[in-house]
């Protein structure tokens, strides 16, 4: 039923996670239910039809569209090579000749004597979908893909950029609120997922790129640094397809932000462990948050023996708010503060903005008692 609060981000060292790996168009699934897969194993493949290229013969050879059959030198379905003559116009009893060559390798898909254009199609390109995480194939979606189940540490961030990557975790920051210098990243960070502390600056991002870091994890990022690094501004929160050589995950929000202790401690525990990460974020219906998944060998063993129908979706409903629930406040004036719920008054209350809302009472880490709208907190998930 209705939650009056934001479901928290998962940060857990023992979590079963299912990932659906789907082709964009129909194809072939190359694994079976029960198969153990590695992140780079291909689980489904297909061929994306080549790009169509339209050539306006009528315009190029100055003929009427209905004259096309007289000038084209190829047939529909025929294979052509780049530079091959595909249409020829001869005028003045053979004195003048103009030709049109194929701009690409491909096949002739259509010759239209109505519009005067010819459509050539380039050869198809193969597309493979990889498992992304180490795990077991739980379900096959015929001709479409699979559901891979894995188990281990699972950390959700609040926002990210960059797509799926993999590497070992390396914590460079000595504390969750440290602001490191770009020079702290050296050759030892190559191929790693590096935890940099409270803020990832444009300088850190560039340095990370130089030394070959695959993933960066920080508490926050300053908006201007994000724009500086990407070279453009992100208007709508749908990310994951940026053309950048690394993936960035921020765990708390925009601005310099201390990484939540629990997240930082878990990352420290995972030092040296292999993990998959994905910065893709989508904040609309069907929320998608960036994630770090580091499978655990013994949990994977258990998964292999687990019955198939155990429902272990990662979108489990959370337990809800109660007195004693640990929360994080996610809007000013207490933005970023950790607290514990001390009361849940049922009546609507008026807050400073004069908005009448459902609120909760909470004790901040320094002992102060505050009242905040329930919509402005998230549960710290276990």
């Amino acid at each position, binding site marked *: 039923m209705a939650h009056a609060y934001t479901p928290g981000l998962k940060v857990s060292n023992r979590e079963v996670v299912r990932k659906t790996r789907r082709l964009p168009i129909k194809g072939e699934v190359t694994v079976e239910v029960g198969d153990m897969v590695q992140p780079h194993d291909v689980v489904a493949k297909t061929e994306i039809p080549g790009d169509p290229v339209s050539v306006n013969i009528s315009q190029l050879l100055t003929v009427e569209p209905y004259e096309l059959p007289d000038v084209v030198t190829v047939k529909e379905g025929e294979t052509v090579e780049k530079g091959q003559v595909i249409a020829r116009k001869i005028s003045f009893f053979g004195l003048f000749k103009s030709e049109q060559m194929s701009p690409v390798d491909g096949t002739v898909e259509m010759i239209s004597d109505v519009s005067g254009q010819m459509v050539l199609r380039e050869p198809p390109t193969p597309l493979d979908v990889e498992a992304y995480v180490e795990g077991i194939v739980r379900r096959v979606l015929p001709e479409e893909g699979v559901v891979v189940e894995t188990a281990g540490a699972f950390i959700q961030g609040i926002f990210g950029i960059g797509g799926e990557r993999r590497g070992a975790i390396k914590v460079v920051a000595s504390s969750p609120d440290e602001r490191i210098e770009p020079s702290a990243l050296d050759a030892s960070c190559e191929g790693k997922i590096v935890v940099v502390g409270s803020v990832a600056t444009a300088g850190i991002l560039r340095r990370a790129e130089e030394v070959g870091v695959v993933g960066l994890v920080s508490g926050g990022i300053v908006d201007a640094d994000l724009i500086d690094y990407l070279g453009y501004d992100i208007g*709508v929160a749908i990310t994951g397809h940026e053309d950048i050589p690394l993936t960035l995950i921020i765990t708390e929000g925009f601005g310099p932000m201390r990484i939540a202790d629990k997240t930082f401690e878990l990352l420290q525990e995972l030092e040296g462990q292999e993990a998959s990460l994905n910065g893709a974020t989508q904040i609309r219906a069907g929320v998608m948050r960036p994630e770090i998944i580091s499978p655990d060998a013994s949990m994977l063993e258990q998964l292999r023996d687990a019955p198939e129908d155990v429902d272990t979706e990662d979108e489990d409903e959370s337990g809800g708010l109660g007195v004693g629930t640990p929360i994080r406040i996610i809007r000013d004036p207490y933005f970023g503060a950790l607290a514990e719920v001390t009361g849940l008054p049922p009546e609507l209350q008026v807050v400073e903005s004069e908005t009448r809302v459902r609120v909760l009472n909470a004790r901040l880490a320094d002992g102060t008692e505050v009242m905040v709208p329930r919509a402005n907190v998230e549960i710290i998930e276990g």
Partner: protein
Amino acid sequence: MSTEGVTKIPKDQIQTIVATDCGSTTTKAILIEKRDGEYRLIVRGEAPTTVEAPFEDVTMGVRNAVTEVEELSGKTLLAPEGVIRPRASDEKGADVYLSTSSAGGGLQMMVAGVVKTMTAESAERAALGAGAIVMDAISVDDGRLPHQKISRIRQLRPDMILLSGGVDGGTIAHVSQIAELIAAADPRPRLGIGFQLPVIFAGNKDARGHVRDTLGESLDLRLVDNIRPVLEEEVLEPAREEIHNLFMEHVMAQAPGYNKLMGWTDAPIMPTPGAVGLGIQNVAKQYKMEVLGVDIGGATTDVFSVFAGTFNRTVSANLGMSYSICNVLLETGLDSISRWLPMSVSEEALRSRIRNKMIRPTTIPHSLEELVVEQALAREALRLAFEHHKTLATGLKGIRQARDMGDTFDQKVSGATLVNMMTLGMILGSGGVLSHAPRRVQSALMMLDAFQPEGVTRLAVDSIFMMPQLGVLATVHPEASAQVFDRDCLVCLGSSIAPVPQEGIRMENLRDSTPVKVTLTMPDGTERVETLGFGEIRLIPLEEGSVAQAHVEPGRRWDVGEGTGRAMDVEVEGGIVGLIIDARGRPVFLEKEEADRRKQIRNWIEALDIYPMDALMKYIEEGRAV
């Protein structure tokens, strides 16, 4: 829209109506009943929408929302097979059940035509009016190369395509070219891997054969009447009706649980914005005035208008108050937002604040400072969405207009916007930031700043966003829809009187002018004279349901609708807020110097009692960075 399948109960026997709107995040249910001969809203309920995983069945959310209605009304409305019909008794079942939907991303379309400003634009208007988000409009002359168009079509994955082009009897070459590009791109539908994408052809009739040969095999092709049978005429209804049919057959049928929901309803499920559009058109008819409606959501802002009898809708898909809030910042710039703030702003902190709202969209303003910033952003989102609307709500472009001698000095270009702020009768706002502002006067000022109405205009908000349900209800029972709209949906804020300076005059030169003098005969017969200097705004209490007679005398170089310097007599409607006389100029004159402007904004806030001044002054005096 077709009303086939609608309940056979005679209209006058309809007592109980249940209607739901399945939004992208929330499903809202309302119960309407006829009591003492009048249809009234009885209760409403809401629950999270359940289209997405892990539920993947829209009817669960509908059940939850209707269950809340049951609990609040004490009635039994649900059975395992849906909303109970026919009504068994006053306490059990309903006579009619209807629904609208925008869940799962709503209806997303691509449109195509031959000429960008003609058939492609008509296709865009047809799609928008039917309630779609137009992902792209492709045309022969849109400046893109054929391969760019093809790759764009491949990339889009719309729910359906509307293809137009050519007048009946004209050349078929160009529209055929576009059809061939679509065929080459082999576009895929957004939902349902392996399903054929629906394409509606509404172009030159003579091209049907070729279009059928080109697209008929690989796509689900539908043929309807040309939307531009001749250049001078636009016929959008057949295309819109087919869009609604396909929305039911394809889009809804692919979305989780909708097959079940379609079996429950007495009329086809409508796309939410399509239903709101119908609602707005009914308002224009009911009140006999030009109407501007706006719905500002988290992701998108829809603008609807009826000017000179023509209905238009636009959707700004990336202007909203949460998911798309950073796009508002991107499009308008930080300065445009901070110009509405009474306090100074630190750019970095403000940027972070806006981004944090984007990534945590469900949070609400706790501090006053947060509310002030959010309402400044809303002004800009509304303004941008309205600018977009003006460019599409136009007369037909590229046509010759018959002129006589009288038109010689009135050289209107074809395709001029239909939007006329002086003749506009009512602005109706909805969406959280307008409907739920802590003080109603805040909504009024946000709308005045964003739309800048001229002359005399009524201001209203939709109390709980019932327009979708009332829109679809209007297709079945227009009287019930109109009665509920008037009594329970519309919250009258009041009216505004805004004089406009004579064209071509620099506003700096008007500083010492008196834009307007208003002599009001109040409902109790007392007289009240209000004279405003340039830059002033004033609130006159005038209760909801009451009317004052106003004699409005504009200053020498000002106009209130009768021409420069000409007085007029008009009735002004009251409301929860009252009558606002706005002499700030059009466009609203803002001081150039930052300190002066902040003081100016503070004066307006104080004059209208927009925010609690003591709390606001705390932020201003502390000089806190926002």
